[in-house]
């Protein structure tokens, strides 16, 4: 049987681009192999997947060199529609990946395009829906679905034809940790039971390395590493620390080898020696756990501790106060149910919870985009950065979006003549944040899923920026699924469940004891530390004591 995917010296340059997006790629993926693509933003992961789907160069144009075969079909002689018969593709943005009116029609569409009869289509739809756990959605309209549901439906449409190879570009970016884990479980099952080769581009490597047979790391469009997961982690430790998983970083900082591929792996390795004591007071609950934190923890507002109920900053009036806030859709469900929440000036608060728990709605109510149906919201201006930073740019030139001094303060002066759409994800987010912060200093800076699709280097920069804002007196509230980011940025974490806080406590307490809402380091060390730097210190301490 031919390779699921074969690239021979593939080079590609987008139309009008100066540098090639792919450079001399040689890669072969065997049938049934599970390959993770790693790399920073702009490293070429998405372009490689688009090339494998035949979109490059047929759809995007540009200059293509070399030879690429997907499922045995040469992309130079077969167009993307022909390649679709052997390769299922899923992109990042689920909104543009659903083209039919109902979920059932969406799943049926690829099969109908292959000319299958109605019985075969109906059977394929049912099986795909069951396999992906979306049977309950089959008769729903696609425009009613949430981002997470859309992503699963789009994945279903990509896999319904049982392709030889699945090309997936950050399929978990819209999902909460629970749904993300479920989806990876489904992928693994399809990989094992159907023999579908999976090529998965992902930033949060700790989620998927344990399922992978192999990791291919890209840098500036070229393959920098092609090894099994452990070999990749060893390479990353030496050459690309930004690609290390938290577990691998923990081991590297503690001077232990080899790096663990999974939590189970790490725990087994630690069990061989002395495990660190679960030190409840080991971390200062008022501080972020460190790690991604580039400096100290300036401006942390003191806060009372307690797992449940209302919490207040001490002293001055809160920057934001929600009292018994409800938000109920007309003729629909209640999204927020009597939320009480005070946030002090300079405090850094994370909102976590499953998809649909009410995080985004809470931010929108706080910012005045939605009026609460009951209860009160008090406080100063809330500068809210919504999920898509591109929504804040309306003009054709970066320099026209902001006054020169604000642009300079955001470190974006050199991009003044660029079109906002031509900026990288990180630059676009910095620009959007600068636009939101422009004018009167906000009492609260709120961000909705700011790390979606963001690599570690950009996260570090964002943590630094938020720390500076908090230091300057603004409260920072971040809604996110990213536990590592929360551990680095937040002093306090509010876990929402079914529209109300089910836990409200220092981040070190909330993330240390969680199952899904926990960092990888916390899961390895049983909650003794949240981030690799603190965990490594504990491990080194243990080693000295021993």
């Amino acid at each position, binding site marked *: 049987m031919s390779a699921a995917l074969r690239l021979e010296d593939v080079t590609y340059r987008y139309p009008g681009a100066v540098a090639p997006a792919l450079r001399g790629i040689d890669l072969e993926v065997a049938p049934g192999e599970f390959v993770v693509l790693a790399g920073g933003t702009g490293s070429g992961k998405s372009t490689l997947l688009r090339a494998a*789907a*035949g*979109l490059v160069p*047929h*759809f995007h144009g540009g200059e293509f060199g070399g030879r690429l075969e997907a499922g045995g079909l040469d992309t130079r002689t077969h*167009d*993307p*529609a*022909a*390649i*679709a*018969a052997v*390769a*299922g*593709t899923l*992109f990042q943005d689920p*909104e*543009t*990946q*659903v*083209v*039919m*009116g*109902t979920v059932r*029609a969406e799943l049926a569409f*690829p099969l*109908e*395009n*292959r*000319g*299958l*009869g*109605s019985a075969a*289509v109906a059977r394929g739809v049912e099986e795909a829906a069951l396999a992906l756990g979306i049977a309950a959605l089959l*008769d729903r*309209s696609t*425009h*009613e679905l949430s981002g997470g549901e859309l992503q699963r439906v789009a994945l279903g*449409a*990509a896999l319904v*034809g049982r392709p030889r190879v699945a090309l997936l570009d950050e399929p978990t970016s819209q999902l909460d940790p629970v749904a993300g884990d479920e989806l990876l479980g489904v992928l693994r099952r399809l990989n094992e039971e159907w023999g579908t080769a999976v090529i998965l581009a992902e930033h949060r490597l700790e989620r998927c390395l344990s399922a992978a047979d192999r990791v291919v790391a890209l840098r500036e469009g070229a393959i920098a590493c092609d090894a099994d997961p452990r070999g990749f982690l060893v390479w990353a430790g030496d050459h690309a620390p930004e690609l290390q998983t938290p577990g691998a970083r923990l081991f590297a900082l503690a001077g232990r080898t080899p790096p663990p591929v999974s939590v189970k792996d790490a725990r087994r390795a630690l069990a061989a020696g002395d495990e660190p004591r679960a030190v409840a007071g080991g971390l200062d609950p008022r501080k972020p756990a460190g790690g991604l934190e580039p400096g100290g923890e300036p401006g942390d507002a003191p806060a009372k501790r307690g797992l449940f109920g209302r919490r207040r900053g001490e002293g001055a009036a809160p920057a934001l106060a929600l009292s018994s806030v409800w938000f109920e859709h007309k003729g629909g469900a209640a999204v927020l149910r009597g939320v009480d929440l005070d946030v002090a000036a300079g405090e850094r608060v994370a909102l976590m919870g499953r998809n649909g728990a009410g995080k985004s709605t809470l931010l*929108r109510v706080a*910012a*005045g*985009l939605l009026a609460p149906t009951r209860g009160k919201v008090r406080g100063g*201006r809330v*500068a*809210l950065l*919504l999920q898509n930073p591109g*929504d*804040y*740019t*309306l003009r*054709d030139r970066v320099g026209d979006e902001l006054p020169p001094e604000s642009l300079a303060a955001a470190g974006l002066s050199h991009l003044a003549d660029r079109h906002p*759409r031509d900026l990288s994800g990180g630059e676009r987010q910095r620009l959007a944040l600068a*636009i*939101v912060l*422009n*004018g*009167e200093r906000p009492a609260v800076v709120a961000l909705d899923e700011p790390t979606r699709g963001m690599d570690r280097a950009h996260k570090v920069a964002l943590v630094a920026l938020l720390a500076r804002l908090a230091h300057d007196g603004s409260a920072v509230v971040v809604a996110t699924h990213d536990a590592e980011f929360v551990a680095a940025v937040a002093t306090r974490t509010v876990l929402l469940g079914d529209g109300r806080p089910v836990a409200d406590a220092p981040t070190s307490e909330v993330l240390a004891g969680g199952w899904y809402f926990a960092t990888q380091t916390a899961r390895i060390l049983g909650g003794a530390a949240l981030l690799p730097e603190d965990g490594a210190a504990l491990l080194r301490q243990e080693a000295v004591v021993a």
Partner: protein
Amino acid sequence: MTYARRASPLHATRAAVASAWCIVLAIVALSFDHPLVLGALLATVVAAAGAARVGRRVAVSLLVALPFAVLIGLVNPLVVREGLTVIARLGTVPVFGALDVTAEATAYGGVLALRALVIIGCFALHSAAVDPDDLLRAFRRVSFRSALTAALATRLVPVLARDARRLHDAQRCLAGEPAPRRAVFRAVASGALDRAVDVAATLEVRGYGAARRPPREGGRPWSRHDLAFAASAAALALIAVAAHAGDAAAFEAYPSFAAPVGAGELALCAALAACALLPFADRRGIGR
């Protein structure tokens, strides 16, 4: 404007028939100039939308279209020089010459506006009550690419509507005055190409370009609603043909306005409304 399945006879009808019924209604409106008939057709469309449980959405479309209709009504008297009754002399404009506004041209402008509203109402009803996925399947054998392109155009509309909502929300998050609506509209319009490219890329990787015809199979049997709306469409077309043949609803805009209202016109209006609305009376089997 997006389709959502409702419990109504029109939604329960197969897409090809429901689509044909809406199109016949629009063609009937195009074939008549008589304001009474057009008014009756507009009332019929609104009543049909109510019976199909999409009245609010069609009403919103009509309200949005109202300025467009008014514009048509206002432009006609300014550009048409026919009619005997001059009601305003606006002087001489270079190139255009003397601008005399006549009562006939003004009245006919109103007729054109009314007709535009009926047609927009018909297509709003079509968007809200005809399943585009079923329509795509129905026309796959006839012209797959045309049907798919049309269906996809309707897909892009909700994507762009969501974009506009998000951009508007983002503007509300800023200090000071939010950007004017036209700036948001411009940003959505300029981003439409990117979005269209994204949707088109998805189509490609779902095998659209390689679309093969499915094997011919026995279709599903015609339901009572399929038959009722097909009969209604045929009856509407026959009534319109008969009315034109019998010179009923005669209308003249120029040189003097003549739109006689008699028993024939009233009977025609009643017949059109009854034929169009009768299929909505049968509420059996309208659920999913």
